[in-house]
């Protein structure tokens, strides 16, 4: 009797995760064209992805689907990983609660309490294929706080939405903080001093093993446990930033914006080994003063920056138009495929989350987007968005939302 029970038990298939069968569960998706965006730049036409337990378990040419897997077939669709935007401000659902200017620098602040999961703006991001966001405070002060890395899930608990909290630090080094009035840090000299001073305080606290509540997270930045995103612009700003956060201090830093004529100093930034997260402006006519519509994105890439990614600084640019940043960068001189990578795997790598997102590779989160055509073409619409194996948007079920 016991042997029979044991045998029966062994025959029973392993329990499935408690997910809604219609939107989750293990699934195999067959598509017309698959852009893996991995380091080998695999493209499969047609292609297939298997999802098991919210992770990708197969990427490649179509194969016989294993038993028990739901089969989805989109023979006309293109599949890409979900997009990753490192500079966004839609986590509060609007413009409110973004800047808290308590002191001249606020390394103690965190975005987490202001996060409104599944707000309308996040939903729009989701239905347009943007699946991972770094929600950060504004650029009111030189260090505005620590942002949250989260996914644009609809109706999921906080724990399953947030990837990392704190996800990284936000610094504003140039062009916005100096517009605020205040008694310190009105000019770049003052701001530079504040940043350096604060960083050194954190380093000193580290050396002395001293606990300082407002500096604890900043210490983690210097221990390279957390990345830091620095808002900076202009040809002087970008050099300043690269020097401070790559040469003076050794951090996992990413230069954000680099607008106006920042592209002119692209070589210097590249030589200092600083990744660049570019946007919302991706072109420059007035500041370059050479009479050209300079495609600043293509200039940064041409200068050889180690990692080039794009952003929206949402809502300066609506989050759902993240893909258009790549289209426009491609229009004004960059390579379109490179720009697609700049929406996906490059930002993931820049922030060290490429073990989970950014490309369609075995073991990564099943964040998959199916489109009716070229991801950079405004004419192509979204058919399906899956995050962590869960279908968050299905055009047939939800209608065309963007």
């Amino acid at each position: 009797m016991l042997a029979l029970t044991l045998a029966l038990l062994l025959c029973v298939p392993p329990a499935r995760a408690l997910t809604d069968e219609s939107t989750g569960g293990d699934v195999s998706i067959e598509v017309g064209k698959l852009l893996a965006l991995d380091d080998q730049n695999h493209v499969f036409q047609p292609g297939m992805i298997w999802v098991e337990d919210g992770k990708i378990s197969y990427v490649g040419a179509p194969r016989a689907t294993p038993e028990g897997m739901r089969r989805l077939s989109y023979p006309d669709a293109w599949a890409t990983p979900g997009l990753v935007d490192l500079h966004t401000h839609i986590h509060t659902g609007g413009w409110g609660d973004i800047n808290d200017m308590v002191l001249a620098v606020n390394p103690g602040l965190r975005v987490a309490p202001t996060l409104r999961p599944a707000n309308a703006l996040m939903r729009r991001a989701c239905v347009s294929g943007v699946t991972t966001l770094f929600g950060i405070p504004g650029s009111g002060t030189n260090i505005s706080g620590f942002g949250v890395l989260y996914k644009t899930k609809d109706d999921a608990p906080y724990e399953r939405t947030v990837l990392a909290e704190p996800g990284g630090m936000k610094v504003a080094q140039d062009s916005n903080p100096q517009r605020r009035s205040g008694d310190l840090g009105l000019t770049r000299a003052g701001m530079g001093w504040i940043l350096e001073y604060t960083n050194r305080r954190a380093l000193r606290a580290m050396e002395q093993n001293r606990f300082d509540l407002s500096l604890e997270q900043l210490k983690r930045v210097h221990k390279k446990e957390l990345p830091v995103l620095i808002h900076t612009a202009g040809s002087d700003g970008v050099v300043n930033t690269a020097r401070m956060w790559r040469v003076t201090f050794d951090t996992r830093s990413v230069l954000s914006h680099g607008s106006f004529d920042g592209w002119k100093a692209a070589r210097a930034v590249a030589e200092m080994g600083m990744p660049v997260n570019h946007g919302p402006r991706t072109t420059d006519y007035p500041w370059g003063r050479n009479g050209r519509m300079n495609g600043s994105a293509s200039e940064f890439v041409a200068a050889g920056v180690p990692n080039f990614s794009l952003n929206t600084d949402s809502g300066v640019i609506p989050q759902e138009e993240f893909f258009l940043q790549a289209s426009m960068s491609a229009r004004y001189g960059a390579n379109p495929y490179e720009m697609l990578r700049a929406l996906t795997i490059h930002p993931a790598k820049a922030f060290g989350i490429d073990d989970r997102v950014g490309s369609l590779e075995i073991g990564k989160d099943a964040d998959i987007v199916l489109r009716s055509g070229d991801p950079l073409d405004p004419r192509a619409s979204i058919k399906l968005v899956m995050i962590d194996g869960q279908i968050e948007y299905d055009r047939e079920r939800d209608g065309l939302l963007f």
Partner: protein
Amino acid sequence: MRYPIEPKAWIATLFALLVAAPASAYWTPGDDDKKSSEDAEDAEADEEDEEEQERWFAAVGGDVHDGSGGVLRGATLLAKNGKIEEIGYDLYIPEDTETLDVSGYQIWPGLVSAASSGLFGGSSALEDTVDPFNRSMVLALGSGITSAVQSNQAGKLKRGEIEGIVMTPKVFTPFSYKNSDPRTKTGLEKKLAEASAYRREYMQWEEDVKKDKDLKAPSKKGIDGSTLEVLAGTTWAKFAADSRTDLLGIARLAQRYGFRPVIEGCTEGWTVADELGRAGAFAIMTPRGRKTKSERLVRDGGSSIENAAILHGAGVQIAIVPATTSISLNGIVGRDMMHLPVEAGFAIRGGLPEQAALDAITRVPARLMRVEHRVGSLEVGKDCDLIITDGDVLHYQTFVQWAVVEGKVVYNKEEELFFAHIRPRPEAAFAPEAKLDAGETLEPDDQEASSEEEESGEDDSDDGDDDGDDDER
């Protein structure tokens, strides 16, 4: 049946008439050797034409997209005095024709925008204030736009000229019909009722006056002139409306009084598309316009990416304009007049058929501007307004290589600083190679000629050295 005259006589008379009539038309004193043939006809036509200054233009070897959806691959377009003369193959091209070799490129109709600002550089009275050299006009041409409405005038982007800019002096007559301001509603309804009644009376009087000559025509006193024009169809009634209630009101008003409303905005049009379709409405809209529906409302509302598609499906004619109707160079690209085709692309995303999207930036705005007989598509007799692109005009990477307005090349991408450095035209690939017969070598003259060309270009793009030195604060 018996003829009073012999058949032979009839035949002779007929023949004489047939020959004599045309022959007399062709005969000119002294030209005895001219017969009533096609040659004679052409020769006389030529003589007449020589008296006017003939200006010929030809774009040779491109894929001609005439705007209706059809393509003629590797064809030639010929224009005379600014009007399209012929489109086809193996055309006879007269001497002194300004010829553009566009092999490998595509020819599209010049784009048309139903609303614009700043393109003409001037202010209200375009004829007297146009700055035909201003940068916005150059960039608009470089983005494919050859005609647009500015300050309620339909204008042609004639770079470098101030004559013949305005095609239609008054395009729209603005009206207001808002739920939020009930006076507009009662006011307009009253005007329409009065004007409509007047029209009926007038038509009746036209009949009656035939019998009774002394009958006085109905008095026009108190009748609003603009409203009368709307009902007569000589002007467009334009409403700025976005909300469902307002749109419904306008649609019903239009149906009641029999006019076609032009609606600017039309954000929630998709919720009342059928009514708008029945009213024969036009929508001047931006596909990416965003408006969130009030949470309190149960019914459909707010903006929808499918707005253009749904309206079009219901029979509303769509004209697309960008969010920013001027040229914007501040670095956030993709939403201004330089990117009109991108905006149309978003309508396609929402389900609008590609042809309708192309119409929305060509024929429909031309229709609204009352110049569909001149612009909006490439047909014989229409103005030679065209753009030559390096790809599908609705693709996000396509650039305008040349823009031609009324048979004159007014924009050449390689000769302007703005975009020449982006995917520059490989001239060598398309220029025919110099032909050499056996035993000959390139004359020194040829080499001198080419170096002269290099010097004359003022906008040499060889300034890689200067970057970084001339930064401004």
